């Protein structure tokens, strides 16, 4: 996110741009601020105008080798240096290295008397001197409107400001002019009239007691730019603008399959698990073991020796560990090995953007291969639905780009499983959606799990009942009775009934076998009888056919004898 985006190859020359180095801003502006031209940054008090301007200078000096001049009309150099030191900007050092030049314009109305015609050549000369002394490429004027309170002759002042901007353009320095936001206009003194190249509006608004800062590029002459309002934060590292990180969907995908941590759940997927780097959504009503399933996945990730980051928005780490130990998922060893990190906080602790930044930061620091957020639905308590949705879009995009497998749980309310934020919001973003729900039967409640979608993979269409045992989650085989799927006690009844039926059938079969045997024996007996009878007849006949022992010669004529 930090590096300057090279302008896309195009036939027409692109407007040359000066990268700001501010995370995210260069993406929205497609490369940075207009090179060699003034840019107006306006906003109400406390929205970070000065900070953005200073970061522009510091990053320019540090990362792009462009020295800068900071002309302040409000704060002194020392004050500014102290203010931004907490962000890691070492202004005195840059100043000593001739990469920055400070000029604090001290304005004191009571000291100045106006007597005749004048111009602001002194300002030009000072600025010119400052620019030339360090070969500056960048200039910040913070806040030039302060002049209006010191010079009563507005006509002269306006003419001079116009001339100043023209002069800065001719000098070829990239300039940021900060200005206070006015009522109904972008700036109190209408400076936008003079700066026509690029205007950035910063906004600091409080919705439901939570402050969100937004940035919008009002205009950018000669260039396309992101037109939306983008949330931004003042973080420990300076300004962080959060565009939808991958405005283009072009992240790489993995073909590797990883296990869910529940073997029988893996088997519901054609490829026995889900893709690495995919995002999963686990929705369910209260008490349907969403966290347990999520913890199983976390444990499985750690078992493979990979790092997992677990955001718990409902339970403290200790509570989570205890509860999971009860169901046979011992996470403590993984924490000891540094493979699992549990970040527990109430969602209301921070605004949404801050959560997102925490996530970004932790992922950058910890480099996990898997992230679990339990649950995302709680974030609704911090922001409106659309804000949460846009934040989740950013989050999911960010995780995908980093090839981090992400598992989100979400609580859905109501008996009919009305999906609140998940419906339009997240379900289209995630790759795999698993639903757990109560299967309420006669006098009891059972848990059922089904896969609603799994991109790029065939999956089981069954609703599987599952149990939370001491050895984790176990999915039971599907039992289909005459009236549909049978769960819980019904399952037991069904089994007993089946056993009874089987016994009856067995009995029947045995009886048939015995009958057959009997028949066979009867038949065999009959056959034996008949055979005996036959033998008797045969013997009798044979006996009758035999001549007496001396008899035959008398009856047989001699062959030679002729009568």
């Amino acid at each position, binding site marked *: 996110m930090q590096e300057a985006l090279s302008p896309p190859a195009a036939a027409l020359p692109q407007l040359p741009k000066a990268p700001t180095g501010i995370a995210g801003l260069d993406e929205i502006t497609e490369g940075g601020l207009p090179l060699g031209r003034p840019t107006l940054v306006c906003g109400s008090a406390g929205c970070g105008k000065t900070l953005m301007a200073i970061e522009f200078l510091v990053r320019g000096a540090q990362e792009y080798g462009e020295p800068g001049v900071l002309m302040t009309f409000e704060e002194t150099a020392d004050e500014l240096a102290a203010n931004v030191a907490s962000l890691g900007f070492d202004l005195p050092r840059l100043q000593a290295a001739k990469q920055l030049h400070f*000029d604090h*314009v*001290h*304005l004191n109305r009571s*000291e*100045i*008397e*106006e*007597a*005749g*015609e*004048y*111009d*602001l*050549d*002194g*300002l030009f*000369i*000072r600025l*010119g*001197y400052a620019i030339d002394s360090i070969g500056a490429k960048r200039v910040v004027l913070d806040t030039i409107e302060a*002049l209006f309170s010191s*010079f009563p002759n507005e006509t002269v002042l306006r003419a001079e400001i116009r001339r100043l901007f023209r002069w800065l353009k001719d000098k070829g320095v990239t300039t940021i002019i900060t200005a206070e936001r006015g009522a109904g206009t972008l700036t109190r003194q209408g400076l936008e009239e003079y700066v026509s190249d690029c205007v950035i509006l910063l906004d600091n608004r409080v919705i439901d007691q939570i402050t969100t800062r937004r940035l919008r590029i009002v205009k950018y002459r000669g260039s396309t730019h992101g037109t939306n309002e983008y949330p931004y934060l003042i973080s420990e590292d300076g300004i962080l603008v959060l565009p939808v990180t991958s405005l283009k969907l072009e992240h790489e995908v993995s073909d590797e399959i990883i296990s869910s941590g529940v073997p029988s759940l893996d088997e519901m997927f054609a490829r026995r698990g889900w893709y690495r780097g995919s995002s999963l959504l686990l929705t369910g009503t209260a008490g349907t073991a969403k966290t347990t399933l999520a913890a199983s996945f976390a444990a499985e990730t750690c078992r493979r020796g990979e790092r997992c980051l677990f955001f718990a928005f409902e339970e403290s780490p200790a509570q989570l560990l205890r509860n999971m130990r009860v169901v046979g998922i011992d996470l403590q060893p993984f924490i000891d090995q540094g493979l699992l990190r549990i970040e527990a906080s109430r969602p209301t602790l921070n605004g949404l953007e801050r959560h997102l930044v925490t996530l970004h930061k932790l992922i950058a620091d910890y480099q996990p291969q898997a992230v679990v957020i339990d649950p995302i639905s709680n974030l609704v308590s911090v922001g409106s639905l659309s804000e949460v949705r846009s934040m989740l879009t950013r989050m999911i995009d960010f995780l995908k780009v980093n090839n981090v497998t992400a598992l989100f749980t979400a609580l859905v309310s109501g008996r009919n499983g009305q999906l609140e934020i998940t419906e339009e919001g997240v379900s289209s973003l995630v790759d795999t959606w698993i639903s757990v729900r109560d299967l309420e039967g006669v006098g009891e409640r059972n848990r059922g799990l089904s896969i609603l979608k799994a991109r790029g993979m065939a999956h089981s269409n069954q609703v599987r009942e599952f149990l939370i045992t001491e050895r984790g989650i176990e999915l039971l085989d599907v039992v289909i009775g005459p009236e549909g799927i049978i769960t819980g006690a019904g399952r037991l009844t069904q089994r007993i009934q089946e056993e009874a039926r089987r016994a009856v059938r067995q009995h029947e079969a045995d009886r048939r076998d015995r009958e057959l045997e009997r028949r066979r024996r009867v038949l065999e007996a009959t056959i034996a009888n008949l055979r005996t009878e036959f033998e008797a007849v045969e013997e009798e006949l044979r006996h009758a056919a035999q001549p007496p022992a001396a008899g035959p010669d008398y009856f047989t004529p001699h062959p030679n004898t002729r009568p």
Partner: protein
Amino acid sequence: MPLVMMELREELTAAALPPAETWELRLYVAGQTAKSLAALANLRRYCEQHVPGRYQLEVIDLLQHPQLAEGDQILAIPTVVRKVPEPIRKVIGDLSNEERVLVGLDLRPQLR
């Protein structure tokens, strides 16, 4: 400026300052522009008229010495800065408005 204040200051300065009070003035210009030349001429005239012999006038051309602009916080040209007596006062413009210059620089003949 309220009248009461003026009187008060006059009393104070008259009492506190030594009789040989001098004015140290610095005129900042940027090249030989019409406004600069007018300012210089006007300033000389007022000084000769009101505090003859008790002033020092230094003219600084910022085109030649741009680094000096920061020290006296010069923005407008021409600017005349009264370094002495304290406090520092500044009058900007071509000094064509005599009354304002006199009030601004507190140029006045010695009271005694």
